[in-house]
């Protein structure tokens, strides 16, 4: 069970460090909670409107927007650019 937990946590860490926040526009109602909670002021809501991933070098991938969205619009998607090298 602990092994599973560690595995899950490692996957989570990897997704957060090597991933990007990706919106599902069909779930979004533009309430602004994501933009409101971004610690460095990225307009995440605009990305959700446009259906574009948050490709912004300033994004800390801290996960605030993902966690606070009341409608599950945002996910971390691993970009997988370096995934092969890590294995």
């Amino acid at each position, binding site marked *: 069970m602990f092994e599973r937990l560690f595995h899950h946590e490692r996957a989570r860490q990897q*997704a957060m460090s090597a991933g990007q926040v990706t919106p599902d526009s069909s779930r979004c109602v533009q*309430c*602004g*909670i994501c933009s409101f909670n971004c610690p460095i002021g990225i307009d995440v809501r605009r990305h959700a409107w446009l259906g574009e991933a948050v490709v912004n070098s300033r994004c800390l991938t801290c996960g605030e927007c993902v966690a606070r969205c009341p409608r599950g*619009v945002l996910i971390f998607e691993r970009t997988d650019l370096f995934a092969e090298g890590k294995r």
Partner: protein
Amino acid sequence: MRYLILGSGVAAISAIEAIRSVDKSGEICVVSDDPHGYYSRPGLAYYLTGEVEESLLYPYRKSDFERLNIRFYRAIARRILPAERVVELEPAARLPYDKLLIATGSQAVPLRVAGADLKGIHKLDHLNDARAILAQARRGRTAIVTGGGITALELAEGLATRGMKVHYVFRSERYWPNVLDAAESRLIESRLQSDGIELHRQNEVIEILGKNGKFQAVKLADGRLLRGDLLAYAIGIAPRIALAQQAGIACERGILVNERMETDLPDIYAAGDVAQVYDAAAGRYVLDSLWSPAREQGRFAGWNMAGKTSAYVKTVPFNVTRLAGLTTTIIGNVGSGRDEDVLGIARGDSETWRELPDAIIAQTGFEVNRLRLMVGEGHLVGAIVMGDQKLSSPLQALIGWKVDISPIRAALLAPNAPLADILAAFWTQVKQQSFGQGMG
């Protein structure tokens, strides 16, 4: 080309963006009676809880409006004169159009109970309503909320978050019985109760009492008297079709439109909450009253108005909301009155649930997760996903595309089957078949 848009909600904004993507130079005029213009109306629920500030409810900046090059009229549209191709406004003005879009939205059905005109009684249509509620929502005071759907629940939760004692009154024996099953209703109700909200099931406000024009108490159908400082209601919404009716445009509950979002009068379109769209699958006109379809309809209306012929095809019913703190996705047909050939299966939280494809990290950490599938003969016909949302997008695709589930149907229906694992594995296969080996 002169475009005239009535309304400033998401359908209107989406239509304007679509028009501009085709026609860079045509004149676009927008008429709206909402003093706050374009803001997130669903976001008002989160403004009530304090999760978002008022200034953040506006998705558009000034530069966004400038980019679209529109003329905005804060006015009431009084009359559409189709023969002259003119809309009369108040304050008095006449705006001519070549293409007209009616995107006037919907509004709360008023409470028809004696005393409903007292001060301290609120609906939640506009930002001004939310402001008025918050002005009265003080810690330690008492609120009474009535209505059976999502908005009423949002009112109850918002007011409880503000520290009010909340009495929530609804007619049915359990919360939202035409969508949720008994276990789901119980789950939501127990969470509301643990937030201190007192439920009054199978009950109704039959009289409102006040003093000096101010709300004081409600009388319930069972004879009890509930005292409170404010009453908030959400008992349904009605499309704002009066203008269209007056102009002789065909309406049922909403304005009837074809797949190009055209009404039965030439060059007049409708989109969003006010429009009743033909649903080929159901064989009738349906109202959606949701943000996402409103945006889609606006987009198609805009394209067609600007000459880019495009057909809007209704997709499988899809609604995302938050019920008592649980993100909830409702896909397809999940309610009562179901087909006999459809089997419902449900699962609560389980260990396997949390081991779904780990390449994607969605919201986690809900104390409760729940999944209900409606399994048809050949494909899944509906699902409710509460809490963890990893499965909702795969399910939306499996249900929407009517994917043949014969490879997994028996496994799904087996006693104590690990639904989440089966679906996740199946989804990986389906994706590979649909998009090829290289993707997914």
